[in-house]
């Protein structure tokens, strides 16, 4: 299997001594759609932020496409954080120009196409948009990059169910077959249909890595049902 993301002994402590990730070893192959699933506070966002270099690992190492995380990997990874990271005074049109200027792999036509399908006016400012619309804009910007690895942290949390389907189809329909998508979420039913692999994470440790087919065949249940069983409170 050709690997896109690889980590060994990846550990992250936060200042107050909290261990957010503990000795994570993981290999993710190219061309997969992977669900990073776990309850709140299990370390999903921490993992995403480490993979993009927004956090510094306490121990262990992490490489993407063979390079340690750093300026070299930023060109090949497209990251959607769980928060609004765009300033609110720019118009959508300006943001697209911003992405086009900085990322050589940004596909402007694709971005405008997705905007029009979701009825978002490129001349609107983010200030005037609802939370869900802002999330859509961010997702469009991130998915319009022709990257090798997409890290989507809670991509559909604030979006209405009708748009969710469209967005999931967009994710599936608009990316290169060799690229890998890692989606972190706890909205499993909505996303289960598109997933190929799942990683279950709990309290900073990986408790299961499996393909969705394997779960269905061996355990005879859906990912959602398995998740509820594994993480029963």
């Amino acid at each position: 299997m050709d690997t896109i993301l690889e980590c060994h002994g990846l550990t992250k402590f936060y200042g107050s001594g909290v261990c957010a990730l503990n000795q994570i070893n993981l290999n993710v192959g190219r061309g997969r759609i992977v669900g990073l699933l776990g309850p709140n506070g299990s370390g999903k966002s921490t993992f995403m932020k480490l993979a993009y270099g927004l956090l510094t690992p306490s121990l262990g190492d992490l490489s993407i496409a063979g390079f340690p995380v750093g300026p070299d990997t930023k060109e090949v990874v497209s990251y959607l954080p769980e928060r609004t990271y765009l300033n609110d005074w720019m118009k959508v049109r300006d943001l697209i120009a911003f992405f086009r200027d900085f990322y050589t792999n940004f596909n402007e036509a694709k971005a405008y196409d997705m905007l029009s399908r979701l009825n978002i006016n490129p001349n609107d400012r983010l200030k005037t948009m609802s939370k869900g619309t802002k999330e859509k804009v961010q997702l469009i910007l991130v998915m319009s990059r022709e990257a090798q690895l997409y890290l989507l942290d809670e991509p559909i949390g604030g979006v209405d169910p009708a748009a969710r389907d469209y967005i999931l189809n967009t994710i599936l329909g608009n990316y290169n077959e060799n690229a890998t998508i890692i989606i972190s979420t706890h909205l499993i039913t909505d996303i289960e249909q598109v997933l190929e692999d799942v990683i279950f994470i709990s309290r900073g440790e990986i408790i299961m890595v499996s393909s969705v087919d394997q779960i269905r065949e061996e355990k005879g249940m859906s990912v959602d049902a398995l998740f509820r069983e594994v993480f029963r409170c």
Partner: protein
Amino acid sequence: MLKKLLKYEIRATARLFLPVFGAILLLAILNNIFFNFNDIPDFAAVLTMMLYVILIIALFVLVYVVMIQRFYKNLLRDEGYLMFTLPVRTWQLIASKLIVSIMWLAICTFVTVLSVFIMAFSLDLLREIPEFLRQLSDFLAHYVGISEVTLFFEFVFLMLIGTIGSVLMIYAAISIGHLVGKHRVLTAFGAYIGLSIVEQIITNLYFSLVGRIYDHTIPYGSYGAYQFGYGAYDFAREFVGAMHMIVIPTLIITVIFSVVYFILTNYILSHRLNLE
């Protein structure tokens, strides 16, 4: 990439400064009209003058507020998620913020000077200009040589580096605040005070060392061949010589501090980044 960062940094800050520049220049013109056409200042004249002074003060407060906000909010808060996901080097992010801050400081100074000229402008003043230029060139020809010109540029350079150093000290303090998990802003304030004290102590030690070196190398009462006939001219020469001896070591240590702050900020943001 630095060019693109600069472009967006200027765009993000210009929208804050340009309206203030416009208001200041407009008030300067109004003040000029009141000066020239009113013999006795009335209420409106006093009011526009007050507004003008308040705006000038506000402008320089704004420069520093924007400088800190653009570094802290744009890099270390939510917007940092975007800035640090760009395929640029960390030093380019810091440099873009620094260059644009210095640029606005220079432009603010220029606008302030310009506004004073606008207020003072009158036809009488215009008539005085040729005479002033003649006297100035006279002065330059008689009293200003290579040494004075060098000194002038040394001063300009010192001011520039000094400003860069003071901005970088703020950046370094904010970055040190970023090293702790909680109370980052408070830590940054503490770090700023701490850095100021350390800088003061090192500067004092440095200058006592420089003084000793001078004591041993330069004979007392002579900085060159000016012992013949001791007039005002020679005194000025000696004064310029002494100024060189102060300005050059000051320049050296200011450059060193700036470089240290830049390296420290770059190290923290590259290797100790932990966005909330």
